[in-house]
């Protein structure tokens, strides 16, 4: 890049004016910024970014309402414009922005709801992978299984939230079909999977989360079960593993060292 070129200087000044509108705009663009039509560029850029955040964080948008969401999103955009040429994944810093955004102080769960929206986006676009069918899994002899490793599907995502029922809040707002029943205020986790090309979700307890963490670190089933029992000595390991298989969370069983 030739920083001294006229084109580069123009682009520096123009880019700056897209988000800030200084009365003393750089002379290279002051004649442009003064024209009412310059607002088309400012509005298009901002609308494109805010629309992308709204599309990528639908549960957050539903929770706070469209006006609140778009105002918060606009603040985020001005500080953290997209860095990737695709807006499908824009918003990696949006959850942490929400965690420090003063007007969201009354909604301490908002950032974690945003984190689940983010995991949905990751699951949706992740690489394709096979899914282990329950019957393939049942065919394994239990001793061989203990020494095997379960490889999570590349679209599988999970998270555990120790203090807040994030899964209940998120899932009711993600697809909008909450039954309105009371939510018990306790820690919850979420498991997102993509069997048959559609992102699905279900609750996941802390032991399930630890088990998957261990699988992702390529530990054996034996070690993963131990990790699960560390956080919940009463965990039903058969149910835990069946749940993962049934959800399509696992793509391969790797035998041997």
């Amino acid at each position, binding site marked *: 890049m030739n920083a001294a070129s006229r084109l580069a200087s123009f682009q520096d000044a123009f*880019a700056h004016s897209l988000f800030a509108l200084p009365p003393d705009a750089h002379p290279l663009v002051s004649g442009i910024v003064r024209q009412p039509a310059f607002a*088309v560029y400012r509005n298009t850029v901002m609308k494109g970014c805010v629309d992308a955040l709204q599309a990528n964080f639908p549960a957050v948008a539903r929770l706070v309402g469209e006006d609140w969401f778009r105002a918060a999103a606009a603040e985020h955009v001005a500080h953290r414009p997209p860095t*990737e040429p695709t807006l499908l994944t824009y918003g990696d810093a949006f959850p942490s922005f929400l965690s420090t955004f003063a007007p969201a102080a009354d909604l301490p769960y908002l950032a974690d709801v945003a984190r689940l929206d983010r995991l949905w986006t990751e699951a949706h676009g992740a690489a394709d992978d096979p899914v282990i069918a329950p019957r393939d899994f049942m065919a394994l002899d239990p001793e061989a299984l203990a020494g095997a490793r379960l490889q999570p599907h590349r679209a599988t995502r999970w998270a555990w939230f120790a203090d807040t029922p994030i899964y209940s809040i998120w899932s009711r707002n993600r697809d909008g079909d909450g039954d309105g029943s009371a939510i018990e205020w306790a820690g919850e986790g979420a498991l997102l999977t993509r069997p048959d090309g559609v992102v699905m979700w279900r609750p996941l307890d802390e032991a399930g989360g630890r088990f998957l963490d261990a699988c992702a670190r390529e530990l054996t089933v034996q070690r993963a079960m131990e990790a699960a029992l560390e956080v919940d000595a009463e965990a039903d390991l058969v149910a835990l593993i069946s749940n993962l298989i049934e959800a399509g969370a696992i793509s391969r069983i790797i035998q041997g060292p």
Partner: protein
Amino acid sequence: MSQVLTAGLGLKPPHYEAARDCRAAGLWFEVHPENYFVEGGPRRAWLSEIRTRHPVSLHGVALSLAADAVPDARHLARLRALADFIEPALVSEHLAWSAWRGAYFPDLLPFPRTSEALERICANVSAAQEAIGRRIAIENPSHYVRIDGHEWDEIGFLAEIARRTGCGLLLDVNNVFVSAANLGFDSRAYIDAFPASPLMEVHLAGHSEDPNLGERLLVDSHDAPVSEAVWALYERLIARVGPRPTLIERDDRLPDFETLLAERDRAHVAVAAFARAA
């Protein structure tokens, strides 16, 4: 797939099934490649499925060829991979910039058409064509503001890029109409002067009036049917240059697929009529 491209439609996710199942003659679809820069999953699966039945064109919006910077190598690699996967009938981009010093602005931004800019853009177009191993068509953008310091008019600038790099051109007739209204030039003279031989594709879309400035500022909003004035310019173009693959773009206030298909059929009839006459 050797069928002749007549008129196509921008592909929108709500229309995936209808698009796949449609059997209209000459139909093809165009997508923004950036919307398929994912490693896998349903989006890519849908595009692949539609591609088994219809030609697909890749119309980039973010390569930022008019930025004073080399095109992003990762972007080019992803575009190459998608092109190899889809085997597009056409690949196109814009005479505009949208990425600058690590930030991406989702718009097609203007610049002074200087000889210095021309050198840079030709180098970028050549680098892009080489990286993806395909010819690219470059589109005239919509203009909203007056910019001082142009050394070239837009047609001369585009023609020179095509001459130097071997790239093609994409003429967006609605962009001409919108720009002519906003900047005060004669849209018919522009259409009549556009070079025929590098013209690989034509775009048609709807525009709207700015909510504050009304008819003094037209916006290339892609949220309405193609206007009659734009159809007239299009028919004038095709009568002169002959049939070219023509796309109806619609991105906002999306009607159902059948409505868009009816609009597309109008372009199909025009292209097919001139194709027979030729």
